[in-house]
């Protein structure tokens, strides 16, 4: 069963070798993902988990298992960096940083599908300003 339906990012274009994903993530965020006990605490407390295709603990498991499709998961973009998960993780894993690292992998390759001109005017009016700020922040890293 494939939980991720999007294919925004061509993972092959990222030229990640076998096993590189976890290394890259760990280098970027300084967290050791293998310390995760897959207990689900992070996911149960995440305010946006309902809308995510992968729950935060699944994101970690995907990275460990070198499942590169994680880079197409909605989750990493839905994460609001609220740190609830990091605060409650018994294993002291900063999931928030891991989400950021995954975004960085994509952004550093200059893959960004958001085109401001594609968004119709009326939608621009209803999207909260904060969303735009976040969007731009993701670009500056």
């Amino acid at each position, binding site marked *: 069963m494939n939980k991720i339906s999007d294919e925004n990012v061509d993972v092959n274009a990222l030229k990640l070798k076998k096993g590189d994903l976890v290394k890259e993530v760990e280098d970027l965020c300084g967290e050791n993902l293998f*310390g995760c006990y897959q207990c689900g605490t992070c996911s149960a407390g995440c305010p946006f988990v309902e809308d995510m295709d992968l729950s935060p603990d699944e994101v970690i498991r995907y990275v460990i298992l070198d499942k590169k499709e994680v880079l197409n998961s909605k989750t990493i973009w839905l994460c609001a960096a609220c740190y609830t998960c990091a605060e409650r993780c018994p294993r002291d894993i900063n999931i928030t940083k891991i989400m950021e690292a995954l975004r960085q992998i994509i952004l550093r390759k200059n893959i960004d599908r958001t085109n401001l001109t594609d968004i119709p005017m009326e939608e621009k009016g209803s999207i909260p300003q904060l969303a735009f700020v976040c969007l731009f922040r993701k670009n500056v890293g």
Partner: protein
Amino acid sequence: MRKEYGYGKYDNVITALQFERLLSSFGPTEGKVSRPSDGKKPKSIGWIQCVGSRSEQLGFPYCSRVCCMYATKEASIAKEANPDIDITIYYMDIRAYGKDFQQYYDHAKDLGVKYIRGRPSSVYENPDESITIKYKDTLTGKIEESTVDMLVLSTAIMPNKDNKRLGEALGVDVDENGFFKQDSLLTDPIQSTRDGIFLAGCIQGPKDIPDSVSMASGAAAKAVAPIKDREKHIGKEFPPERDVTNEKPKIGVFVCHCGKNVANYLDVEKVTEDAKKLPNVEYADHMMFVCSEDSCKKIKEMIQEKGLNRIIVAACSPRTHGGLFQDTLMEAGLNKYLFEMANIRNHCSWVHSDDWNAATDKAIKLVSASVAKARHLESLTEEEFSIYPSTLIIGGGVSGMKAALALAKMGIKSIIIEKESKLGGRLRHLHSMFPSDMKSEEIIDPLIKEITKNKLITVMLDSELEDLEGYIGNYKGKIKQKEMKKEIEFGTIIVATGFREIDLKGKYQYGKNKNIVSQTELETKLKNNDLKKPKNVVFINCAGAMDEERPYCCRVGCGVSIKNAKLLSQKFPKAKTYLLYRDMRVFGKEEEEYYSDVLKNYHVITIRYPGDKKPEVVLDKNNPKDGPVTIKVYDDLLKEEMTIPADLVALTVNTEGGAETEKLKNMLKVPVDAAGFFIETHAKIKPLDFSTSGIYMCGAAHYPKNLVDSIAQAEGAASRASIPISQEKMKGEGIVSEVNEDLCRGCGTCESACAYSAIEMKPHPRDPTRLVAEVNRALCKGCGSCAAACLNSAIEQKGYKSKQINVMITALIEQGAAK
């Protein structure tokens, strides 16, 4: 404590210890489960495991070792008493590692206790004071909320806050968590960092009752060594016994108020007055506390003054206080068996606390029954027998060797018999030991050296016990050493025969491909540098464990697999390592920390698989014997089938008792469980003793266990085995059974009824053609089973003869009829 679980904020969130108090009949609710907020019976209860344990932030890094099982126990008790309560336990791994633990856990599931794998994120209180838990069920993948009337937290076991100060005062080191440090975890777990100071139980790290009791016995052995230099303890001296055979019964009855315990619930005055009216009662009185020194003095005075020759105390339980009163009798020159106790507290004032008349009436009946029996009481003698001052240790693994050394330190001789040609047991085949990676030869070589040097220890290699006769204190054994036969004598026996990996009978393709090995084989290969460089290594835990055939957990397998994953990763850093497991059961001191370090440092990929979907090993069609294999495993967390190529598969094979267990069991006449492990007298309070006096067990012969626990048990068993030996002489029970040889028809029914192997069929002394039962007074515990079993009424149990019991029954009936 983690704030998100609401402890201290919400009334209906309590700790597991508080829940224990709710279950206790002496607790605030007298055993009725009720919510703190309104005292109502909860319709649902939840447990959250590992609260503060296994935590790298806001908690402790270690596993608290006992909470999985106590939560299971608490849930089972609550469920059994109230099947309508809905019970759920939220966990990460259920650590049901000990003897019968897994079966107990399975039983709880059968009772209807629900287990959900997921550590809740937070809880909140509802207007009706129920608690809603937010969690992810990691086995279904669903994020859920569930509301319970009451929430119990299995909180971490913490060392005492004062440990640092105490450690400083004693001059011993305390570890970073606050537990006392041992000199060396893998070789001397009981020894603290300072000579002369020893550790027992949870001061060293969390542990359950049997492991604490074993360790405590071991610590006692170390603390009294060497007793050979000390003066022997001499028991109390009593005046000579008065011969009462020809005296007519003169009975004294002493009724106890037990403070208010008895006197507030029944009429002690009336009980006393009624006793006075009974035939042969010479004297009766009631006292505030019969067990007080003054009262005992009074009893002695009355024995002298009135010439009393039978004493009855109507009070509490003979189990707790009988001995004290018997001493009083002996001090007054009476045989201690001329004593009876009527338990009018437990059986009257406690159970009928709401009915003064009924309680009084029953107390009167019990006293009159005791008086009826007392008329027929006789003086009994206790047999004294000598003890041969040496211990036989069967098995020369770490446990056997450690036991021998502990005995030697106490000045006691021992003989180790080992069936192999070398000492060391399983460790001879292992590479190094978790959790401190000490090489196995660094552990056994110094032990072997020490043993060889020690004059008190005799080692017999290539030897097996062929025949055994005798009983505690006086055993004779025939030992077969290669072609030779030897006869030796000893007073006590320690069984330390260890364990072995089970025969997988081809499961997981074991035996069909050379790249599929057991953990022991893997370690031997590692030790001998006999491994090809692998690319993908797969460990499969619980091979042949926790299934229908063998419902138990192997206790050491998880630790072993992690250790070997580490060893392989160190040797072959490029290899990918997968660890397939069901529950990760690393519970001992420093084990959880070891586990998480290995995962982090070596990037071992763990895959949890469900018990009903075992991993499958597929051989290569073209090269089944030597080629690589494929592992198919169902990832329980992602809910997907995974296929892993592997060129090395290590199976964590379940274990069972040694090969000779069956033979030993028959020779020693001791019980063995279905898995071939020896069965102790009592799982909690007598983990090292067999029910037959004089025989003890330790190490993996009792159940698979790691070195720390094996050594603690070994030193504990040495302590147990030294007790009879250091007494030189022992006294048996006075209350033993007695065979009437003329009535006995030699059927042997009693022999099989006796749990203590105290009866044997022997030729009749006058008519050797006929077999009759013979009771060994040294072994008989006076339980009465044989007397009850004998179809010919040929056995009487002293102190409880049929006549004595019959007059009691008659007295009870007559008293009832008189009403």
